[in-house]
């Protein structure tokens, strides 16, 4: 499959243009690193590609078609701060079940312990929570994963654990990955190619 952003420009209603004429494409099986200064618009691009923000110009296409607006989103966006993307009033079991799947092998590989499932998000640490937001995105219907600084807040061991699970799952299901990170070591370790957002060729990559 192919995820394409074509001539994307974006701005918030009262703001300035955040980026203009961005072209990006990710094939299934590819792991693309996206680097660039903070504030240059990487996270906004992630939201546009995942369909959470509409570009003011250009379009996002999945195999040449628009992304479906209802139902399960085949492009799963994982954020830096899990505490902001998990419903604080739900037990973790419900958080996982929202995406429909609970593959126990994934939970185990992710190091999610059984008794965490009955807790609320405030009763878990950031590293523990992030495993849940990754686990719920690893679903049969997922085709692309956009990981926006997902391991910045984690210690090295948890970072390695989460990424190894994602990479392993991604290989088996032939997923495409967009990895936004400031950690060059990480990008060089896992990515098949790396794009610098500020030096991107705006007229076709």
């Amino acid at each position, binding site marked *: 499959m192919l995820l394409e952003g074509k001539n994307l420009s974006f701005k918030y209603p009262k703001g300035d243009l955040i980026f203009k004429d961005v072209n990006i494409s990710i094939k299934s099986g590819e792991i693309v690193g996206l680097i660039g200064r903070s504030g240059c618009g990487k996270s906004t691009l992630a939201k546009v590609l995942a369909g959470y923000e509409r570009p003011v110009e250009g379009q996002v296409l999945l195999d040449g078609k628009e992304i479906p607006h209802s139902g399960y989103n085949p492009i799963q966006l994982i954020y830096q701060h899990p505490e902001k993307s998990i419903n604080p009033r739900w037990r973790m079991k419900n958080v996982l079940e929202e995406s429909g799947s609970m593959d126990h092998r994934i939970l185990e590989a992710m190091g999610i312990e059984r008794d965490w499932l009955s807790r609320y998000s405030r009763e878990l*640490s950031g590293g523990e929570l992030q495993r849940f937001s990754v686990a719920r995105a690893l679903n049969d219907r997922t085709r692309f994963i956009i990981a926006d600084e997902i391991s910045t*807040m984690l*210690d090295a061991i948890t970072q*390695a654990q989460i990424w190894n699970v994602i990479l392993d799952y991604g290989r088996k299901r032939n997923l495409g990955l967009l990895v936004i990170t400031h950690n060059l070591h990480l990008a060089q370790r896992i990515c098949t190619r790396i794009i610098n957002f500020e030096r991107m060729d705006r007229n076709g990559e």
Partner: protein
Amino acid sequence: MMYMPLLEVNNMSISFKMYEKGLRQHDMNAISNISLDVDRGEIVAIVGSSGSGKSLFAHGIMGILPKNATMEGEIIFDGEKLTKKRQKSLRGRRISLVPQSISYLDPLMRIGRQVQGPNRDDKSKRKLKESFKRYNLCKNSERLYPFQLSGGMARRAMVSIVDQEDSDLIIADEPTPGLDLDLAMKTLRYFREFADRGKAVILITHDIDLALNVADRIAIFYAGTIVEVAPVEDFHRGIDFLKHPYTKALFNALPQNEFKPFKGNQPYGGIIGKGCLFAPRCNMMDEGCKEDIPIIYLEGKMVRCKNVT
């Protein structure tokens, strides 16, 4: 005269009173028996995963623990015992904290005033202006309230706190997330300068890469204990120079090394018993690990593991 480091923490333990059911209480140990010293001219980095007690240790030194916490052990600052009274008079003056998150700011006070601290004279106003400029904070940001700042701006404002007073000891609690690499490195260089001017710095971070860039010694925290304190060179020289199995696991997990995860999870405070807390995850575990673990001193470093020689 006996040699004395600027800050010496001996056997610090912190526990919390927690309510179980109704009015029944129990104590939860959050950190136990931590000893660490920091001297003028050096940066000691505290590295550990979230929940390992790094911030609590800092709050213990500052004397800003919540009311339901009890602290034991002894802190000596500049040759004198750091009592509660002394903590109160020194904090924000000779000892400064760069707090971890924006939630430590007073939401109802303009940011300039908070950073400036209790002094209102012209000299400190000038200092404030200079340091805001240094951190690329625009002139009118002084007048803003915390909710009006972006995450990065708030972070820079908090880091600029250390400019305001001529502190002897700075404790920086995760000062760099939210800063881009340039600014993060700039901040770290600033801490370095600060140490080189004869001050002491404690840098708390979960990011071992960051610590390797700037620190002189690294203290590895695990589940509320220190498992190893080693000079930064040992990390650059390679895994054989690191002693504790957890330190080795951290090193191996870095993407530029093996990128290898490690089985198991850090235990919670409260379920902490006698013996080594890392033992359930450790490949070298044996019966002896359930006993009290001796602290082994090797040249320039300290390890809490009985299997280290």
